[in-house]
């Protein structure tokens, strides 16, 4: 067999051919083998991100958005996690087929990740300077002194006041917003091509949320990075994202450029999400909520996973899994980048 030729393919050419997206996920499946059975967390997700582009992945807890990100990062716990299917092409190279050591070198250098809860995601027993500097020491082989200088530079860049004085502080000595800035600085350290931000503002209060999102967007623009923004906050998405992928039950149910989705959602689930946003002009009225609970991943409903909660479900929704249809205008003209996994997308968008 061709084990030799396979390893000799690596390292692959740095610059992928023109037109290939920075990251392309193709038909990714992830399952977790637990005592109670196989939980299918991701069931055929495909999406792509280009350099300088922001993709927002939207969905409830358990929709598989974080698991997809962890699969891209290669930080899934395997076992119990398993990727039976799919490709993750980064700069044209399938990460899933990469030897562990080569994949490790991509993490942090080429793809970096920002986690949700900065307090638990930063190591409590090391100074932030050491944790930031570690990137340079491990990946660039810098001395401790140079790495600390770099750490100060990074902290300045994410606008942490008195960076030089605070480089020796521990994570618990910072406020929540500052801690998240440190997480961002850590992800930015080696100027990666792609950043995955897993609910970067969920643990922060609203005033700080905006600051952190602005900072993230600004740094992304400066470095022309691809950004995958995982969130369940539609308000955050509107400002920074270029396109949106809505996930439900481990599948993408709708794809769209960001502004279109607010105007004309093509999936009942997206509609429900938009209606759940509290609005000032409806003050005093009862808030809308999508009825029911997210699907149990051990036992996903047959047909469309959303059918038990869908106000428009018909018989076909309970039997046939809808494919991701190309969404078009009423007259049949193409709507670029739009897709909906609903049997009745036409009624939803044009009805």
């Amino acid at each position: 067999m061709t084990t030799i030729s396979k390893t000799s393919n690596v390292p692959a050419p740095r610059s992928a051919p023109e037109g290939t997206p920075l990251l392309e996920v193709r038909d990714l499946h992830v399952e977790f083998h637990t005592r109670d059975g196989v939980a299918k967390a991701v069931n055929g997700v495909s999406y792509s991100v280009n350099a300088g582009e922001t993709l927002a992945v939207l969905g409830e807890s358990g929709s598989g958005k974080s698991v997809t990100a962890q699969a891209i990062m290669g930080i899934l716990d395997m076992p119990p996690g398993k990727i039976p299917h799919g490709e993750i092409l980064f700069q044209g190279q399938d990460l899933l087929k990469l030897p562990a050591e080569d994949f490790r070198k991509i993490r942090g250098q080429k793809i970096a990740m920002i986690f949700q809860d900065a307090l638990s995601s930063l190591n409590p027993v090391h100074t932030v300077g050491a944790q930031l500097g570690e990137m340079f020491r491990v990946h660039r082989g810098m001395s401790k002194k140079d790495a600390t200088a770099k750490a100060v530079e990074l902290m300045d860049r994410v606008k942490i006041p008195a960076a030089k004085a605070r480089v020796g502080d521990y994570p618990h000595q910072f406020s929540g917003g500052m801690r998240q800035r440190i997480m961002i600085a850590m992800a930015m350290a080696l100027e990666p091509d792609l950043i995955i931000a897993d609910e970067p503002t969920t643990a922060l209060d609203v005033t700080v949320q905006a600051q952190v999102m602005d900072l993230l967007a600004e740094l992304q623009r400066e470095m022309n990075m691809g950004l995958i923004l995982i969130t369940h906050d539609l308000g955050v998405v509107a400002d920074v994202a270029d396109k949106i992928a809505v996930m439900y039950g481990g599948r993408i149910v709708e794809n769209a450029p960001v502004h279109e989705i607010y105007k004309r959602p093509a999936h009942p689930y997206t509609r429900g999400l938009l209606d759940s946003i509290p609005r000032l002009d409806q003050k005093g009225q009862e808030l809308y909520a999508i009825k029911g609970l997210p699907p149990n991943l051990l036992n996903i409903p047959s047909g469309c996973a959303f059918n038990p909660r869908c106000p428009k479900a018909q018989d076909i929704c309970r039997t046939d899994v809808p494919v991701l249809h190309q969404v078009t205008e009423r007259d049949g003209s193409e709507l670029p980048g739009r897709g909906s996994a609903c049997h009745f997308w036409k009624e939803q968008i044009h009805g």
Partner: protein
Amino acid sequence: MGRYLIRRLIQAIPVLIGATFLIYWLSFKLPGDPIQALAGEKKADPLVAAMLREKYHLNDSFLSQYWNYISNLFQGNFGETLTGRSVWDKITEAFPYTMNLAIVAFLIEAVVGVLAGIMAALRRGKFLDQLVLLSTLLVISIPVFVSGFILQLTLGVQLKNSWGIDFFPVSFNENDGIRAYLLPALVLASTSLAYVARLTRTSLMETMRADYVRTATAKGLPRRRVVGRHALRNALIPIVTFLGADLGSLMGGAVITEKIFNIHGIGGLLAESVYRKEGTVIVGVVSLLIIVYLVANLIVDLLYAVLDPRIRYA
């Protein structure tokens, strides 16, 4: 930090007084007559007995005896045995053996225990993990006097007879240097070693699931660094607690192990003085052990702050 240290040292005083009082009272209440015990089988000479009783204040009330003792103790005078030897001399004679034994045992249990625990945690559910779990369970359930004799027989006698390797002396001999302590220290350390291995395994497995370990992996750090620098450093905190407390109890001597290997340490001294009802020796030794315990505990508490920067003492 300085204030914390002073407060802890002041707190130690009532503990010391309370403990000596209790022990003194217990040895006062021991049945039998120490003077008669001195004479052995035959009847003690009444004249000599009366003289000794007078000399050692044995006719006084308990409180006055205790006061007498404690005021001497605070002047650094540990008193003397009923045969006229200084208690301090007896302790300093026995203590070096116990301390050497404790240090060797501590090193064995810390190094081997932590390493076994790390290997088990990193190969969770695999053969090595099962091996560590099973062997530690076995060690924990075997009493010291059994494992002592088994090791004496296998490593000490059979290894020498069938392989010609005379590395583990069966009986303690000072001239063997550190080699003399290996076998007894192994026996003494075995149970704690098993606990340390299991504790390390659990603690490390727990921290390996922590968010910051996931972050470390996502940073593209080599696994060795993820485990060593990020997980282990945090996992070490409960292990240090256990090791610190255990160092205290190792210093307290090991009656059975010392007996098996014929080491004349603190454990043996204590057992012997209980047997002879020598209150002064018992209380002297116990006071010393309490001090050792208190110091070990204090060191552990101070180490916490070194290991975990979130802990600060004021």
